[in-house]
């Protein structure tokens, strides 16, 4: 893979142009202070450091993405299954104790939903 000496000579000369691109004046005087300010402003916990290091590992990134996809998928499935299981249960089964048919058919009848009030008086 060795190049002939002058094969890329023009290209290499053109690439020297990149060395002349300079940031605004004073940029490198300010940058260290900005970095030190960020370090002081955001002290990281041990947990953040461990997480940072794990996120650098590619297999961990893939595992984390997979786990997240599983959680989201599971939550979606739960959201779909939950309402449908409620809808198949008999309507009467969900009524509170003490409610009767008359209170449902006759709106003017007094509603006594409190089980205490239906207890016979001694």
């Amino acid at each position, binding site marked *: 893979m060795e*190049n002939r000496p002058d094969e*890329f000579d023009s290209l290499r000369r053109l690439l020297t142009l990149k060395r002349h691109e*300079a940031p605004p*004046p004073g940029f490198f005087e300010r940058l*260290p202070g900005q970095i030190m300010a960020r370090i002081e402003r955001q002290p990281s916990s041990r947990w953040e450091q461990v997480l940072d290091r794990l996120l650098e590992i590619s297999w961990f990134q893939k595992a984390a993405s997979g786990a997240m996809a599983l959680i989201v998928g599971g939550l979606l499935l739960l959201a779909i299954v939950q309402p449908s299981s409620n809808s198949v249960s008999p309507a009467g089964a969900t009524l509170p104790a003490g409610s009767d048919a008359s209170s449902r058919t006759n709106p003017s009848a007094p509603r006594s939903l409190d089980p205490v009030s239906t207890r016979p008086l001694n």
Partner: protein
Amino acid sequence: MASDSDSSLPPSKTGPRSPQEGPPDNEVVRRILKGESELFEELVRRYQQRVYATLYHMTANHEDATDLTQDAFVKAFRALATFKGDSSFYTWVYRIAVNRTLNFLKQRKQRTFMSLNDLDVQVEHDPDLVSLISDRTPERDARLSELQSALNAALLKLSEHHRLVVTLHDIQGLPHEEIARIMECNVGTVRSRLFYARQQLQALLSDHLK
């Protein structure tokens, strides 16, 4: 055209240079870990220009390069306890910066826009560039600006790994061995990537090369 006294890149063909003054990096790291955390600023001053320049050439965007340089040094500070001294501090911090930038570029893929720095005043006298630009001043400025845009656009068309090799070798002047350490690959891979990247650039810039 802006100029900055300390912003010109070292045209080093000999790779990273040892710090000009002060204690060696490993000594500074040891003192930081013992509690003199303010000394980290000294390490930032030693390597900020080279790290920033690499990230700028990788992103072709000053603001992104600034953020990434800050991120890299903040991350290096927090991970300093894990620096074992197997490689130089310079290689270690470069590796952090490069990995962070490669991740950033993967996410940025769909929105690439350039925010290029001005060329410094020495550009017009660079012997390598004299033959590529016109003699007359107004045309020369326009030609330089056109070359700068074309060159950056062509670099952005390379894959991140190919762009990185060209940046580190042909622009920053690092030797193949140092690049292999930074990219954690073998020297043969560096050479083949460099060859392929140059071929691609040559084709992309054929109209601008004499």
